């Protein structure tokens, strides 16, 4: 009896779905790898690479918001902390401030400090719920941006740092379009796979359970607060990875990059794509960056916010769980429609 059950399990729908998923990911992976071969430098870097690292920053929000039920506006701030720290500890145009460490020392320290910053933010924000979480993280984001603008000793004030570039590995210039694209792709793929894996880990399941019912989580022995703070720490590391690439892409970091407006854009990307699946933030980032680059052709460049605002409203009104949610509903085969995760 038991054997018969196990035998059918091998060919169960779940397994067929698994094979389908592997095929889908294989195709997507190949397409992303081959993309630079048929695109211009503008499309490789400005659209391609930027989508990949902004998507990773938005992914850090999707992880926190979609799985943890905590909407944070400080994700770009965590990215900014990493960017500032790699400038402070590494090499920049301000050798009087920068410590000039080698990349292999500066990068881990930058990631560590950004993660610590996110953890401390989490310790404050995880005590709140809903709208208050949004407000406290926005306050932290604005405060950090203003602090960077006014502090010249460490953050070099309004100008920030320029001359930031990725390390040269084996004589390869990682700032050149093709290497930078593949670097962004590697970081994005690692972040994406990491989130997908952790989602089904004990920690990831527990986080979703905290989102669904924190009270029950306490009643089965979990320290809900510690779980939320740990989720912030992980989101901080993800955002920091994106932040390094952001700094190298711009070649600089300054308070304007992490001001309130850009912080909210991260939320727009995550919601546009959909907070229901880790691919959502990347889809959202792609749409956002395409609009940002081509709104000039559609309408006055000063009116970009109008374009993105209208696009955002249309998508969110048509599908509260974003483009990925829309896609899931259109392609779902089961007639009963299954259950929404939220």
């Amino acid at each position: 009896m038991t054997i018969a059950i196990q035998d059918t399990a091998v060919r169960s729908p779940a397994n067929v779905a698994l094979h389908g998923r592997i095929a889908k990911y294989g195709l997507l992976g190949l397409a992303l790898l081959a993309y630079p071969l048929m695109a211009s430098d503008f499309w490789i870097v400005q659209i391609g690479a930027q989508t990949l690292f902004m998507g990773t920053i938005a992914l850090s929000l999707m992880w926190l918001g979609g799985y943890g039920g905590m909407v944070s506006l400080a994700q770009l701030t965590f990215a900014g902390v990493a960017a500032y720290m790699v400038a402070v500890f590494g090499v920049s145009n301000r050798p009087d401030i920068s410590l000039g460490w080698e990349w292999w020392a500066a990068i881990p320290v930058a990631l560590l400090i950004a993660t610590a910053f996110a953890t401390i933010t989490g310790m404050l924000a995880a005590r709140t719920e809903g709208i208050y979480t949004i407000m406290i993280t926005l306050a932290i984001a604005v405060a950090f941006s203003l602090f960077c603008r006014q502090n010249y000793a460490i953050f070099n004030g309004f100008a920030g740092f320029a001359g930031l570039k990725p390390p040269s590995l084996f004589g390869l210039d990682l700032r050149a379009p093709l290497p930078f694209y593949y670097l962004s792709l590697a970081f994005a793929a690692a972040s994406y796979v990491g989130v997908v894996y952790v989602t089904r880990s004990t920690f990831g399941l527990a986080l979703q359970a905290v989102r669904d019912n924190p009270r029950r989580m306490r009643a089965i022995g979990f320290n809900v607060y510690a779980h939320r703070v740990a989720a912030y720490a992980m989101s901080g590391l993800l955002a920091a990875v994106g932040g390094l690439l952001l700094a190298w892409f711009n070649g600089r970091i300054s308070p304007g990059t992490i001001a309130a407006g850009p912080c909210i854009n991260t939320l727009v990307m995550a919601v546009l794509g959909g907070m229901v699946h880790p691919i959502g933030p990347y889809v959202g980032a792609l749409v956002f960056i395409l609009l940002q680059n081509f709104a000039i052709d559609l309408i006055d460049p000063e009116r970009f916010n109008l374009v993105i605002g209208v696009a955002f409203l249309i998508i969110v009104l048509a599908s509260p769980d974003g483009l990925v949610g829309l896609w899931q509903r259109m392609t779902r085969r089961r007639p009963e429609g299954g259950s929404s995760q939220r």
Partner: protein
Amino acid sequence: MQRAERLKSVASSNALELSGVSRVFGALVAVDNVTFSVTAGERRAILGSNGAGKTTLFNTITGDFPPSNGRIRFFGEDITELPPYERIRRGLRRTYQNSQLFRGLPVLDNLYLAVRGVGRRRMSLLRPGEDHPARVAAQQLAHAIHLEDVADRPVSELSHGQQRQLEIGMALAGAPRFILFDEPAAGLSPAERRELVDILKALPTHIGFIIIEHDLAVALQVAETVTVMHQGRVFKHGLPADIETDPEVQRIYLGGRHG
């Protein structure tokens, strides 16, 4: 002094001791100076009309709301100041009157988390294999609460009765020593009630519990002793047969239905 405390705890065979427990919400005294104890392995029913303070009493015991006054001991240890999850890790469990489940997750993941919650490495970043001890324990729990057929379905797709069964399964995970059942039969059909009584009677004898239940038939089938609460206080305590026929209890609790 500490040594004396410890000796006292060893000597005590009480699973749960409440002394002078009160809980006040503003001007409302929901639980008023409640003192009683339940021995290890004992099965106690708490009866009382709506608003008698039964669920609030549970909430003070589990730490959902700490008591305003009084002390609570669990197997001799004072747990009054402990956060809820620390009480759970010591073997205390509860179910809720309104199911409190993880609706987005499948049945098996709900049970798996309940098993992991009292174990080690709760923040593991690794995916558990199907042969992981906690996974296996979750499977066994699904069997024990008669839900193995729907183990892979999300909770949001379960019937009310199935959700009530899962609610009990969540409390049985990870070696409980004492369980608080809050109206487990609420909203169940007669057939489902019989299934519930079977599940409760099949619990290992070392596991004691307190059950809040409006259905007297269910309560008196599974309980050895009965405490009646009224307006936040302990009103009467005794054996099921005595309580059932007590005229005062009938007056306040049964509202003359049986009279």
